């Protein structure tokens, strides 16, 4: 299996917020060595657990985001652990970390220490707020980073608190940003011959998902607002997530000229089921502009569309949508995603063999690559490692013999 990042060695010190970053680099072919404290990454002790057995090798949050990595244990707070780490840095291309700003420097492993050891190394630091600035010393996590990005303010029902996604999207966003920052720095190093320090902030990473509306405040004064399952237009509020017989579907009245064929096809489908009024059928779609609709007009359309959706299941609506290009989508749960015929055709899911625990079905590559011949691939290289599974083989590279390793284990250095 060849990869775009073959030959790149990453030392991964990241905690939960950056787990996905190392996985992405590993999925592209980099040799990612996860460095865990001897007690293991804290996420290993967090459930839910595979088969509900409270076991650090069965934490699903660990298993989900640490594939394509090897694992070694090393206590960086002990001088011997620190020295071994610096030896590894001498042979590495990238160090990825999520410590509080300054914490690594306190251990003698700050940017200047790493640079002195290896001027070609790239240090990527992923933190909630950034390495410097008035809030650099603040604590932060998914919820608080999103709170400070404008994105939380705009997500939720108008009559309740702003609300987040129940899985940590700030970690995913910032991790992809960190992986791309590393890749950009690898390109830069091809010319400059030297590494650099990349300061990636989760708060800043969550501003982009507002899709320009943060900047647009200066032009339109719009502070954003929660509109629930609806979208706020200049003249109206338009529903975009609709109840159906067994769940929810997404369907929008907006989208400019590209949206019109889907609306026309939807009315035709409704008519075939005897659920389109004469007035709806008589709509002149050539002059339709969602920006100009009044709330009364929107409500009238919504009543008809909503009644139709309520009479059908997610599967029925999505099948019709795919056949007729209705631009409608079901609000899938893991169950529907697992059963998707599109994903099955693309062989998206992969079975990963986990030693001693069996096979587990995973989402596979985040992209597919084609080339004239022998293309590189994106995707899971190896199962999520067991704690310290690769300590001996990795430390052997920096001259740690079996005897020395036994000594290091005894001293709880690894």
């Amino acid at each position, binding site marked *: 299996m060849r990869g775009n990042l073959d030959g790149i060695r990453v030392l991964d010190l990241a905690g939960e917020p950056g787990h996905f970053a190392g996985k992405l680099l590993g999925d592209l072919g980099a040799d990612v060595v996860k460095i865990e404290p001897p007690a293991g990454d804290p996420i290993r002790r967090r459930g839910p657990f595979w088969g509900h057995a409270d076991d650090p090798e069965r934490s699903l949050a660990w298993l*989900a*985001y640490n594939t394509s990595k090897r694992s070694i244990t090393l206590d960086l707070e002990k001088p011997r652990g620190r020295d071994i780490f610096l030896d590894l840095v001498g042979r590495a291309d990238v160090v990825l970390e999520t410590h509080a700003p300054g914490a690594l420097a306190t251990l003698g492993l700050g*940017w200047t220490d790493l640079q002195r050891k290896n001027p070609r190394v790239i240090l990527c630091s992923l933190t909630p707020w*950034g390495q410097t600035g008035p809030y650099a010393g603040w*604590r*932060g996590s998914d*919820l608080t980073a999103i*709170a400070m990005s*404008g994105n939380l*303010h705009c997500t939720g*029902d108008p009559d309740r*608190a702003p*609300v*987040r*996604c*129940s899985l940590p999207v700030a970690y995913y966003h910032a991790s992809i940003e960190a992986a*791309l*920052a590393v890749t950009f*720095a*690898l390109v*830069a190093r091809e010319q400059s011959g*030297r590494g*650099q320090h990349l*300061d990636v902030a989760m708060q800043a990473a969550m501003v*982009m*998902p507002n*899709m320009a509306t*943060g*900047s647009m405040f200066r*032009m339109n004064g719009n*502070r954003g607002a929660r509109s629930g*399952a609806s979208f706020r237009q200049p003249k109206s509020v338009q529903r975009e*997530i609709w*109840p159906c017989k067994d769940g*929810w579907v*997404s369907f929008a009245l907006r*989208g*400019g000229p590209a949206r019109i064929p*889907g609306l026309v096809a939807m009315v035709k489908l409704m008519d075939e089921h005897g659920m389109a009024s004469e007035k709806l059928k008589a709509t002149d779609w050539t002059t339709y502009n969602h*920006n100009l609709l009044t709330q009364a007009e929107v409500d009238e359309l919504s009543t008809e569309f909503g009644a139709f959706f309520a009479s059908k299941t997610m599967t029925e609506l999505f099948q019709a*949508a795919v056949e007729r290009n209705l631009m409608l*989508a079901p*609000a899938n*749960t*893991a169950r529907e*995603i697992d059963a998707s*015929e*599109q994903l099955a*055709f*693309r062989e998206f899911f992969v079975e990963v063999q986990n030693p001693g625990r069996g096979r*587990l*079905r*995973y*989402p*596979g590559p*985040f*992209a597919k*690559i*084609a080339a004239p011949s022998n293309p*590189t691939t994106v995707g899971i290289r190896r199962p999520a490692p067991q704690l310290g599974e690769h300590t001996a083989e990795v430390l052997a590279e920096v001259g740690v013999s079996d005897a020395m390793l036994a000594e290091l284990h005894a001293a709880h250095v690894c």
Partner: protein
Amino acid sequence: MDIFAGTTILEMGAGAAGPVATRYFADCGATVIRIESRARPDFLRTLRLTPNTPGGLDAAEHFAVLNVNKLSCALNLSKPEGVAVAKRLALWADALAENFAPGAMKKWGLDYATLVKERPDLVMISTCLNGATGPHRFYPGFGGQGSALSGFNHLTGWPDRAPLGPYGTITDSLSPRFSALLVASALLHRRRTGEGQHIDLSQVEGGIVCLSEALVTFAANREVLGRAGNRDRHTVPHGVFRCRDAADGRERWIAIAVHDDADWKKLVAAMGNPAWAADASLASTAGRLARVGEVECHLDGWTRTHDARPLAERLQRAGVDAAPVLDLGDLHEDPQLAHRRHFRPVDHPVLGRHPAEMSAIAFSDTPADIRKAAPKLGEHTRHVLRDLLGMSADEYDALEQKGVLA
């Protein structure tokens, strides 16, 4: 030295996902050329367009913010001469990024299989909702559909209410990041091996890979994770609480995330040790999980008597993870974003001075920056074709007369 100085990226397509991806390169010095046409303008240029919009297609705020640092070359692809010029640009550029529906590029003979015959080391990325193959490949969609299909909607919102998409159609913001990562890795790979490649990025698949925990949990235990408001299944309190309204009447909220029992102790002390929190059974996570509603209710009663930002600052001083909920206007007054110069001003010919956003990356050695406003449609057609591509004046004039360059 800019990372991508001397690198040219050709961008074809519309909407937000494609343009945001190439922005990363443009901000790092790449020459990013958008191929556009008045015959079928980018829907971002028409999002709020009414017949009376001053400046027309060049006045779209959305487009302006997302497309700074780029060039616009007008080419009418409904004319064969327009397609021929696009092909020359595609073969000349260092990378080609497109986000049309599958099939569109093939129709023009601009698909990877055709182009690679003339340029074996071509680097090209195609991004669409469901990917370039499979029974749903032609299924058109905007980000709203991507968010629903990949599972984000189901996981966002309150358990007793309709699902919601995270604001801003999340697959539109995840996919540009994946795209920039993939293209940069492909350019690095070509530099080291001489090999090109075609990247097929499905927005839905990228989103699902992000949500691996939900999929792996289903595969392992047949458990379907659902939306839980702001609660965390491992810790309490973890939520967003009402604060005193702003002077102008706007609602104010604070996010508070207690991660363990030590955090809880700090929070209780910061609240001034109220009687309700002294209950010994609340000292453990298990105890708080059992009485989550009660804890949240008490906390909400306390936060309502405070202003959000000073309260967050006070909690942070006490070592508690807390932050005010900022609205889109507040972002411009946030000292941390200001310190990073996250918003930087640029002068637009129609809209005047406006801010645009940087990425979340501060590079120590090769800083990115915003250098010029988003292009007017076709603003750089002559520059791109004559100066960069080296087209003769005669050919250019002939194309212009035929209406190809519009």
